[in-house]
């Protein structure tokens, strides 16, 4: 079983005509992407013409040439530069640090919070993001307050930009004001079930929403209006469950949500973080975020490969902030395993997948869902969801409305 698509009768290709790319048949059209996520949507006759070799007078030539899809006009210097800038060759360190302030291991103590922030600042990279995740803001408040203040000072002392995010369910207006005044983004974590009650306000004033989509969630347009009404700037949907039915209803919901955004693009300021992170936010052409993009820390100061890694049984624990040295992370077997499993060239179906430059199925998530870091792609519901979301986004791309929307969000689609 494969979710990759193929022509029943493969088109004839002339050697040296097309540059390396992956393709996918999508709603009667052919989506092509390159290693770095540049894309084009062609009709089948256009794709066949492209493979057979285009003449410079062909109408497709300028577009495909500018996007690097023509072997005969391939800019090797630009490709080398891009490969260096957007691959592990220029990797500096994980930029995103998730601090799980309460949970299975209890609430993080203040001394542990200090050690954790110190550890984060041992990680190189031009910018650090600290995302504070909590269930009970009241119980965690001293730790949240301290981390915000301490990280801000560490940022000033080291002259490094620090991006702070507070993600939770409930917060008082005073606490929200404190976070706002210290430049910390507020993210409301909520469960989406049924349709929204427009009169019910969110539990605190947040800029962003992280919405766990329950299978019973419906009326995506209504939800979009609800987010809009209560002042959210962006929303990220996450799966509450990876069961077959849940994944299908997620992608259907998401498609309708995108339609609403495109329809109301001019007047709405609401943004979709899934499309943004896939198309604009990915620095590394590697799926998932274990170690390379993200590290996570629990209340006991244990360091994990990612937030998903922290959700497992401790197999992806790298050590303790008190003892682990950042420079030793590369030597750990768990690091090597997740990094190797992250690379699509090491995965049978991923190596040919058109969405490989955008993929975000972390090895830790595969471990959680299927018991293997590598994942069994044909039966992976995380892969079904990822490809379903990408289908919903990319099947809409040729439409001017969506292109306008992405332009408005500053996504460079060229």
């Amino acid at each position: 079983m494969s979710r990759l698509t193929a022509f029943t009768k493969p088109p004839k290709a002339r050697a040296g005509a097309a540059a390396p790319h992956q393709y996918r048949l999508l709603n009667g059209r052919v989506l092509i992407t390159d290693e770095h996520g540049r894309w084009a949507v062609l009709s089948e006759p256009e794709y066949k013409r492209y493979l057979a070799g285009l003449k410079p007078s062909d109408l497709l030539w300028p577009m495909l040439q500018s996007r690097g899809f023509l072997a005969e006009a391939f800019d090797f210097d630009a490709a080398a530069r891009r490969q260096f800038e957007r691959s592990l060759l220029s990797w500096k360190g994980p930029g995103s640090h998730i601090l799980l302030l309460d949970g299975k291991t209890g609430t993080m103590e203040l001394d542990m919070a200090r050690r954790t922030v110190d550890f984060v600042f041992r990680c190189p990279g031009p910018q650090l993001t600290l995302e504070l995740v909590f269930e009970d803001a009241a119980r965690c408040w001293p730790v949240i307050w301290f981390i915000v203040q301490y990280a801000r000072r560490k940022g000033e002392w080291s002259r490094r930009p620090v991006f702070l995010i507070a993600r939770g369910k409930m917060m008082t207006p005073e606490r929200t004001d404190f976070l706002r005044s210290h430049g910390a983004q507020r993210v409301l974590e909520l469960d989406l079930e049924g349709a929204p009650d427009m009169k019910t306000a969110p539990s605190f004033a947040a800029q962003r929403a992280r919405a766990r989509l329950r299978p019973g969630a419906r009326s995506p347009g209504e939800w979009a209006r609800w987010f809009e009404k209560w002042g959210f700037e962006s929303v990220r949907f996450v799966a509450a469950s990876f069961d077959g039915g849940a994944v299908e209803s997620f992608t259907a919901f998401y498609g309708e949500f995108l339609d609403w955004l495109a329809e109301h693009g001019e007047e709405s300021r609401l943004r979709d973080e899934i499309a943004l992170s896939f198309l604009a936010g990915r620095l590394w052409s590697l799926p998932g975020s274990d170690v390379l993009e993200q590290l996570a820390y629990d209340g006991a100061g244990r360091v994990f490969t990612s937030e998903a890694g922290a959700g497992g049984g401790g197999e992806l624990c790298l050590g303790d902030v008190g003892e682990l040295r950042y420079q030793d992370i590369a030597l750990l077997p768990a690091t090597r395993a997740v990094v190797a499993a992250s690379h699509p060239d090491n995965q049978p179906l991923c190596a040919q997948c058109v969405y490989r430059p955008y993929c975000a199925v972390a090895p830790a998530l595969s471990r959680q869902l299927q018991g293997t870091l590598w994942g069994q792609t044909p039966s992976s519901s995380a892969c079904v969801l990822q490809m379903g979301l990408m289908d919903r986004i990319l099947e809409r791309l040729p439409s001017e409305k969506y292109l306008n929307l992405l332009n408005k969000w500053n996504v460079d689609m060229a």
Partner: protein
Amino acid sequence: MKIVKGAVHIKLGKPLYGAEGLAAGALALGARAQVFVDEGKTAFSIEIHPVEALSSAERLALGGEFLNEVLNHEYRQRVVRANAPLTQAVFAPLFARGFPAVPADPLEELEPQVKADRAREVSDLLEQARSMT
């Protein structure tokens, strides 16, 4: 694949399948089953004995899971070998240089007073935070 006396019997031909792939398949089943392998000249004979009582459909599903992982492993090894020059070019420098940490703040190293002032500031912050509890 067939079920004989409660065990799932599978025969996989050589050289398409190897011992490493079978080990990967057995690992995927974990503690749910015992996997026995007999190596013949041209094929491996595998018996999967579920640890718990399972229906026939569940036994077949277990065998399917084993086969999925074995096939996945074998195919992955081919893909890895085919792409080795590319992946090695990316991974080798990464692991060779390790993950260099940010060096200690030179200002703190050169000016002990700066270090002391900052330590006091942090200690004040911790005090304030403790007073909130």
